[in-house]
């Protein structure tokens, strides 16, 4: 191959892998009405790319792309495409395109379309990732990603409990399987000496001969069986039927559940060929086929029936993978394709019936062929394919399956029993297929329906029609349509020695045909004998329906997730906060003591500054405030709050005294908002008029004495360490570098600000993100807030005064406060612009601006302010984050790492030289976010009094009625 052409193909493969994820992001960003279009286009583009890639993977050729990820650690992200993954990827994108078309009709007018299509695309990307991974660990990552996306898709209508439960069960089962798979892959990687898929696939002999083989096999099989809903992990699949039907049609025909059988077939050269493999995989597969098929006959829910039939058909494919002969692999791949086609069609039909009649209950349906003739015809074709009727695709692969089961493989008991089991399984599939068609489309209408049934629109009919036509075409001329593709796929799995096989309708009157005929006759007889009692009976085979795997699972989860942890808690833990905190503090003190033990020493020559009487006096007041706050916080909250403010102000003065003006400014501003915040909170706490019961008991006193000791020891310890540290000589540290380089590198003379917005801007970025998260959390918490009943009443102070007085209350100060608004804005701007060179900066400016808004709320009342001022704090937060991120990413454009700043002074008219570093733009983001977050928190709390007033009015109305 020409190197240039090779590069082009590799780029196409890369594009193919990234396309669904990119489309998902696009869908999430675009308006809802474009969602289906973008999703469909991306699926179609994927098909075009695959068509272009097809020549590169014929005759067992493999196309690889190596992407460096962490080259120093030897980690790469290789992508790999061969005939098998090509066929599978085509199936995924093809069915995906049809599902998107169908969903456009099915989901029309429903909420959250963009979310739906974005998730669907994300899922497609994850599925394709499994297929294209060239590294077995990367494969597991995508594997888990499909579990996560399927969780979100199954629980798409998360308002319904069934959807939530189904999604959770599916996630728990498949993700646990994924973890087992990860472990299994690690073992395989260790044995094979490489995590590269190609290397692993060629070291089959080494793996199967290794002592750890059975461990690896068990783990990988658990992964595959959970994903493919094999017994005993099958129960998540029926639960997943609460998903929107297009999701079911996609997940349970071509993708999610097929990932498991993909894995089995893919790894059969590496892990297969042993008796353990045959017994485990074929055994479980046959068991699943029988159990699933049996239960499917008895299900009354249309989708439930299809779910169990899917389990059964997956069992068939698994059994074939277990047999592992070239013919069996060919049959398995062929059946994967066929099953995807007829099952997608059937799920879509079930969705159509549900959509057009309002029910999926087979017992309430009947005779729909009169009102929905087209849908009925298509459903009959697809069901016949599922049953294995000749001239349809299902017949061909089932025939191959029966032929494989009848052939001799290894002479075990299971091998001998295979033909009988296969026939019984086929009998069941004939019976449930007939029941599905007869009960829904034939007979008399069963009763009044919610809607008058009628044919759906083109978007919902066309995909089903195409799939049914596909079933028919493959069934009639198999070699023409899929013959070479399937053979190529099998070749790339089996490798050298694979002889392409001609897929034909007529092989003569052989064993397989006889088994097929037996299955049909017995299947029809079975249905005839059961048809009368099915609608009234229980939803499961006799005796077995009492034993539900779902119930067992639920009970286990309850024990594991609730009962046992509770019991553990009661043994080793306490729910009370005080003992926990006490333990924490004591542990911290002990740990610090242990660390300092023996190593603690004061410096020989202590450095220090001269004693200052003023400073001492100041801290005498500060310490008094702190102790006073500690003493009064229980019964005199307001006094405690005032004293807390006193301690804060002394702290602020200390910063100013000790050459840290930036800290002093910020501390002062934050002090203001903290105090206001706590004042707002005071209103919602219970009144304390008399002593709390038991407050003077001996026990309480003893506890207080004990805590006093802990506190004193802790305080004394911290003081000693602080003193020892402060009197040590200063060693040269990174701070000197900041001092020396702040101006040359950061373009500012205020080192503290330069550190924050330039040298350590990434830390600041993380910090403002935290601030935003906290503000949003507070907002969310308070939306559900209900005050205690006694706090709803009007405060005493308001009740004792009449309305007129309230209006004039603090009139002069409030007018002044309103006038302060522009002044404070000015101060905020001043702080902001001088930040880089003089004390100030985005933090200080943001808090100042928040205070400006706050004053307006304090001066009048919430309603007055909000009638005149629209603040939109959440937008400010978002803008702030965007500006900060945007500035950071701006440096990428110039080829520098994230958040590299550029400094320059710009002369503005009237203002003069202004430091115009890009750091200033970053600081603007900090400003907007800090302001938005602070205002959001304070307003959210302040609004609670409005809510209380509303509750009060509501109560009064109730009483007067």
């Amino acid at each position, binding site marked *: 191959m020409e190197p240039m052409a090779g590069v082009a193909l590799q780029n196409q493969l890369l594009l193919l892998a990234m396309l669904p994820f990119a489309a998902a992001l696009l869908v999430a960003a675009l308006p809802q009405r474009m969602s289906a279009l973008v999703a469909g286009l991306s699926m179609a583009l994927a098909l075009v790319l695959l068509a272009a890639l097809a020549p590169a993977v014929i005759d067992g050729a493999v196309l690889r792309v190596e992407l460096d990820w962490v080259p120093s650690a030897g980690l790469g992200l290789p992508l790999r495409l061969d005939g098998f993954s090509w066929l599978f990827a085509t199936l995924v994108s093809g069915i995906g395109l049809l599902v998107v078309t169908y969903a456009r009709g099915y989901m029309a007018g429903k909420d959250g379309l963009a979310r739906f299509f974005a998730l669907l695309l994300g899922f497609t990307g994850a599925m394709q990732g499994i297929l294209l991974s060239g590294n077995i660990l990367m494969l597991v990552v995508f594997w888990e990603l499909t579990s996560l996306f399927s969780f979100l898709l199954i629980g798409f209508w998360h308002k319904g409990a069934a959807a939530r439960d189904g999604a959770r069960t599916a996630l728990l089962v498949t993700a646990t399987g994924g973890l087992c798979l990860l472990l299994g892959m690690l073992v395989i990687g260790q044995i094979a000496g490489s995590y590269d898929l190609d290397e692993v696939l060629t070291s089959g002999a080494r793996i199967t001969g290794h002592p750890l083989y059975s461990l690896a096999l068990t783990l990988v099989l658990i992964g595959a069986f959970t994903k493919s809903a094999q017994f005993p992990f099958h129960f998540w699949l029926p639960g997943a039927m609460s998903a929107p039907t297009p999701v079911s049609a996609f997940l349970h025909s071509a993708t999610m559940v097929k990932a498991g059988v993909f894995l089995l077939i893919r790894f059969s050269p590496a892990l297969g060929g042993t008796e353990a493999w045959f017994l485990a995989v074929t055994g479980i597969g046959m068991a699943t086929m029988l159990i699933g098929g049996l239960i499917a006959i008895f299900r009354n829910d249309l989708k439930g029936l299809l779910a169990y039939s899917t389990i059964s058909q997956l069992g068939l494919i698994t059994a074939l993978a277990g047999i592992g002969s070239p013919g069996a692999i060919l049959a398995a791949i062929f059946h994967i394709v066929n099953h995807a086609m007829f099952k997608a069609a059937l799920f879509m039909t079930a969705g159509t019936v549900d959509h057009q009649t309002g029910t999926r209950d087979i017992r309430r349906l009947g005779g729909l062929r009169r009102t929905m003739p087209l849908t009925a015809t298509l459903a009959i074709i697809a069901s016949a394919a599922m049953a294995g009727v000749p001239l349809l695709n299902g017949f061909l692969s089932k025939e191959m399956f029966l032929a494989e089961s009848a052939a001799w493989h290894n002479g075990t008991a299971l091998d001998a029993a295979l033909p009988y089991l296969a026939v019984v399984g086929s009998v069941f599939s004939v019976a449930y297929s007939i029941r599905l068609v007869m009960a829904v489309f034939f007979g008399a209408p069963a009763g009044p329906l919610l809607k008058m049934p009628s044919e759906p629109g083109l978007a919902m009919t066309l995909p089903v029609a195409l799939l049914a036509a596909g079933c028919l075409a493959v069934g009639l001329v198999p070699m023409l349509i899929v013959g070479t593709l399937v053979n190529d796929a099998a070749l790339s799995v089996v490798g050298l020695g694979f002889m392409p096989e001609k897929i034909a309708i007529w092989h003569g009157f052989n064993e397989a045909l006889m088994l097929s005929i037996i299955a049909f006759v017995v299947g029809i007889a079975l249905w005839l004998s059961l048809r009368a009692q099915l609608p009234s009976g229980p939803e499961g085979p006799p005796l077995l329906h009492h034993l539900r795997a779902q119930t067992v699972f639920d009970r286990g989860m309850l024990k594991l997730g609730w009962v046992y942890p509770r019991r553990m808690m009661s043994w080793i833990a306490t729910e009370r906060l005080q003992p926990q905190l006490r333990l924490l503090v004591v542990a911290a003190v002990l740990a610090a003591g242990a660390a300092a033990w023996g190593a603690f020493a004061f410096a020989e020559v202590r450095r220090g500054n001269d004693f200052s009487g003023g400073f001492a006096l100041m801290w005498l007041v500060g310490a008094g405030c702190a102790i006073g706050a500690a003493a009064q916080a229980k019964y005199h909250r307001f006094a405690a709050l005032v004293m807390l403010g006193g301690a804060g102000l002394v702290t602020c003065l200390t910063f100013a005294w000790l050459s840290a003006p930036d800290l002093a400014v910020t501390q002062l501003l934050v002090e203001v908002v903290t105090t206001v915040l706590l004042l707002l909170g005071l209103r919602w*706490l219970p009144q304390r008029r008399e002593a709390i019961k038991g407050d003077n008991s001996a026990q309480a006193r003893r506890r207080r004495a004990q805590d006093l000791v802990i506190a004193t020891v*802790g305080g004394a310890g911290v003081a000693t360490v*602080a003193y020892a540290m402060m009197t040590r000589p200063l060693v040269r540290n990174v701070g000197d570098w900041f001092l020396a380089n702040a101006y040359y590198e950061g373009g500012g003379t*205020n080192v503290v600000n330069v550190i924050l917005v330039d040298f350590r801007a990434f830390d600041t970025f993380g910090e403002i993100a935290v601030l935003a998260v906290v503000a949003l959390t507070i907002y969310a918490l308070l939306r559900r*807030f209900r005050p205690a009943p006694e706090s709803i009443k009007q405060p005493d102070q308001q009740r004792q005064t009449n309305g007129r007085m309230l209006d004039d209350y603090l009139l002069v100060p409030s007018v002044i406060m309103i006038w302060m608004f522009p002044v404070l804005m000015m101060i905020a701007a001043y702080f902001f612009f001088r930040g880089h060179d003089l004390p100030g900066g985005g933090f200080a400016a943001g808090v100042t601006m928040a205070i400006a808004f706050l004053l307006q709320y304090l001066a009048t009342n919430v309603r007055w302010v909000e009638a005149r001022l629209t603040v939109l704090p959440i937008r400010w937060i978002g803008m702030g984050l965007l500006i900060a991120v945007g500035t950071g990413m701006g440096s990428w454009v110039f080829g520098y790492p994230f958040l590299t700043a550029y400094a320059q002074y710009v002369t503005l008219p009237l203002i003069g030289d202004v430091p115009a570093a890009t750091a200033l733009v970053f600081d603007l983001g900090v400003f907007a976010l800090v302001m938005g977050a602070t205002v959001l928190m304070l307003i959210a709390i302040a609004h609670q009094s409005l809510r209380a007033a509303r509750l009060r009015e509501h109560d009064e109305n109730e009483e007067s009625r």
Partner: protein
Amino acid sequence: MELILSFAIGVLTASGIWLLLRPRSFQVIIGLCLLSYAVNLFIFSMGRLTLGAPAIMPKGGFIDPTRYADPLPQALVLTAIVISFATTALFLVVMIAARGFTGTDHVDGKERELP
């Protein structure tokens, strides 16, 4: 100076710890505020105490780092001040929400059972 400031840190810490171990949520919130002062001062003091040093540097020229206060602890404390405000606010909201839901301001959401 150093002695006074370490004494101050000690008192703030002790008051904070004592309040942290108290049963009423308001006491705990005040305790956390006092503790945050103490911790901020402690971190700040790690850069040693510098009196009367210029806060702002000249534009260019040789810089003698010993003539300035250590900027690094200051930058750390500046962010710490803002973050401690945020956590105080969060705690306050949790406190009043818990008070609304449980009807008590005890930290455990229920009054201690008396013997």
